[in-house]
């Protein structure tokens, strides 16, 4: 199934199993969301468990916080990650802090879903990857699946989690894997093993990375769409790279990272977000702190540039396989 269908199914499973799970957001009710991730839920569970919200991201999150404090398990959709900033205060000052500041008198189990990343000619307001402004915030968890299997399993884990989870959905992967070769025919999830999603309620645990390819020469740390870009770059460069799909950015699976870098002695970090103070900076710091004496070459970052996400220059901005291959070669030659 597609990632959209997997996300829909995760909602369905969770709502069916737990009355406390409620779903709302802009256009998520009758219509089922602009990406159709909640299609059918209102018809099945009624308007008081799946409904349209006013266009107010801060209000959506703020109301969800109140619902979570009451005892529900709200799962809300922000239509695009680019539109989460109005909710930033409610997320950072409230959702992330309520458990700590109240000594667990009140808690905030909720999931804030949002399509993230580029590759769809969405320009600067439909393409952003804001993960780093959440991973800096203690009290939050941040997950980002790269395939339908993980999308379902991680979303179920996020809904069960007792704390607030930012759930980033790489929109370019909704209907098929994408390795950055925009000029080639699009592929669908049907033909991909990870598009084959198990029934039922099995979760993919938060905080555990996945190894997408074992290799001995260099460790590639990636997540979301960049996992496929890394795979393409590996194939094209022929370098025996170990590709790690981080899956959860906060808390990070440091053991998976160190185990790999200790083995390879080299590391390339890939993300779509702008570089300065992006999540790659933290990965770079962690690798340096944990594996300094194993490193045979400087760790490299391949990222989006420090500019707003452009419209016409999408493919010059998007860190594609060519740039990642180059980094792989560079880190091997160093």
């Amino acid at each position: 199934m597609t990632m959209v269908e997997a996300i829909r199914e995760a909602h369905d499973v969770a709502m069916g199993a737990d009355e406390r799970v409620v779903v709302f957001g802009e256009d998520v009710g009758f219509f089922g969301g602009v990406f159709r991730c909640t299609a059918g839920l209102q018809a099945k569970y009624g308007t008081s468990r799946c409904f349209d919200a006013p266009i107010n991201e801060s209000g959506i999150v703020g109301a969800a916080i109140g619902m979570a404090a009451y005892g529900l398990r709200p799962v809300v959709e922000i239509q695009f990650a680019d539109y989460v900033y109005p909710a930033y205060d409610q997320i950072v000052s409230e959702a992330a802090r309520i458990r700590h500041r109240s000594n667990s008198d009140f808690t905030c189990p909720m999931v804030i879903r949002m399509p993230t990343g580029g590759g769809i000619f969405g320009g600067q307001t439909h393409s952003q990857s804001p993960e780093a402004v959440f991973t800096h915030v203690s009290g939050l968890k941040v997950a980002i699946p790269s395939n339908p299997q993980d999308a379902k399993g991680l979303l179920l884990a996020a809904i069960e989690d007792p704390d607030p989870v930012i759930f980033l959905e790489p929109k370019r992967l909704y209907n098929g894997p994408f390795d950055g070769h925009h000029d080639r025919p699009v592929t669908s999830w049907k033909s991909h093993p990870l598009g084959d999603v198990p029934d039922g309620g099995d979760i993919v645990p938060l905080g555990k990375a996945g190894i997408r390819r074992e290799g001995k020469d260099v460790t590639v740390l990636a997540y979301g769409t960049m996992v496929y870009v890394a795979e393409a770059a590996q194939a094209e460069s022929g370098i025996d790279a170990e590709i790690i799909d981080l899956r959860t950015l906060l808390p990070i699976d440091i053991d998976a990272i160190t185990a790999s870098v200790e083995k390879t002695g080299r590391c390339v970090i890939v993300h779509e977000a702008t570089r300065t103070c992006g999540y790659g900076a933290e990965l770079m710091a962690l690798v340096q702190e944990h594996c300094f004496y194993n490193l045979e070459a400087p760790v490299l970052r391949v990222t989006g540039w420090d500019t707003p996400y452009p419209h016409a220059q999408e493919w010059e901005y998007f860190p594609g396989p060519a740039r990642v291959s180059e980094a792989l070669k560079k880190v091997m030659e160093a």
Partner: protein
Amino acid sequence: MTDTPPLSLKVPEPQCRPGDTPDFSEMEIPRAGAVGRPTVDVDPDEIRDMAFSIVRVLAKDGSAKGEWADALGGDELRLGLRHMLTLRAFDARMLNAQRQGKTSFYAQHLGEEAISCAFARALRDGDMNFPTYRQAGLLIARDYPLLTMMNQIYSNAEDPLCGRQLPILYSAKDHGFFSISGNLGTQFIQAVGWAMASAISGDTKIAAGWIGDGSTAENDFHAAMVFASTYKAPVILNIVNNQWAISTFQGIARGGVGTFAARGHGFGIASIRVDGNDYLAVHAVASWAAERARLGHGPTLIEHVTYRAGGHSTSDDPSAYRSQNESAAWPLGDPIDRLKRHLIAIGEWSEERHAQAEAEALDVVTSTQKKAEAVGTLGGGNGPSPRDMFEGVYETMPPHLIRQRQEAGY
């Protein structure tokens, strides 16, 4: 108080969904001319009722009625009609171009043309609009080059914004048109700030903010109302109520009050509802609000009542969430038909001249489109340089960006 029954959540529902028969009979529509025109220094409290009525000028028979029927002459009305015809033709061609893959995205104005076209004519040079993506009439009615608009839509080498911004999110300072944001609501308070700046500077310019019915729910709406109310900013705050926000009907944003204009009552702001499909009414109300602002009597909130006859954008299929007949059932008619009928009624126009004007508008748009496509279309090769994406992040490019540009090889 004794035990109470279980509570339940009330979720507003639209009157009709796909398959249902649209019925607007609940909607109270005063006849043209019914609502009086107060003086521009009126105390907002005295015109409370105007937020629950609708200022209308054009009657069914094409005549102009009442105190709001202001002095627009035949030439001005024909010009207005041309602007609307041009905008409609422009939309038709650009929708088509998007379907042909010449651009990534487009949003049309179908049914809403009167609002931006008439409003633009009520402002002066130097005034500033903070528009949404559905007010291109503000540009067309102030003679902004169609070619430049198309070059942006095609993100070609002559895109004035160098391919950085989405199609239709125009910026035209010298045409009183602020850079459109893709983020809803944010510009409403910016318009108030701009107006405050004009007042701080002892200037005579005014600002106009624009927001959709759905977007009034955004928090920036509150900021705009608070600041406009507190500092009596010379600003016109326009709500375009086209009944829908993508798939969400206006009731979800409006809630338990009858109209969006009523929001102004919580802030002591003069609030008026106007028939958004009535060129004369929009122009008259806009002129009234502009004069009020310019004379230092403060802000006006205008709710333009209209209907989004087309899809939300090229990414949208309205048949999934609303009745296909709803547009036809919409009681305020089509803005172009209505102005045309009025011009004919007053002997300033004819079916023949209209057909000719329509053809002319289409000609202009099509020939301009050829020119634009000769320059290039999205992904068609002759686009803006990758260098451009690194420019203009700051006035002077800082070292780290220069390094990145070099790393990128541009």
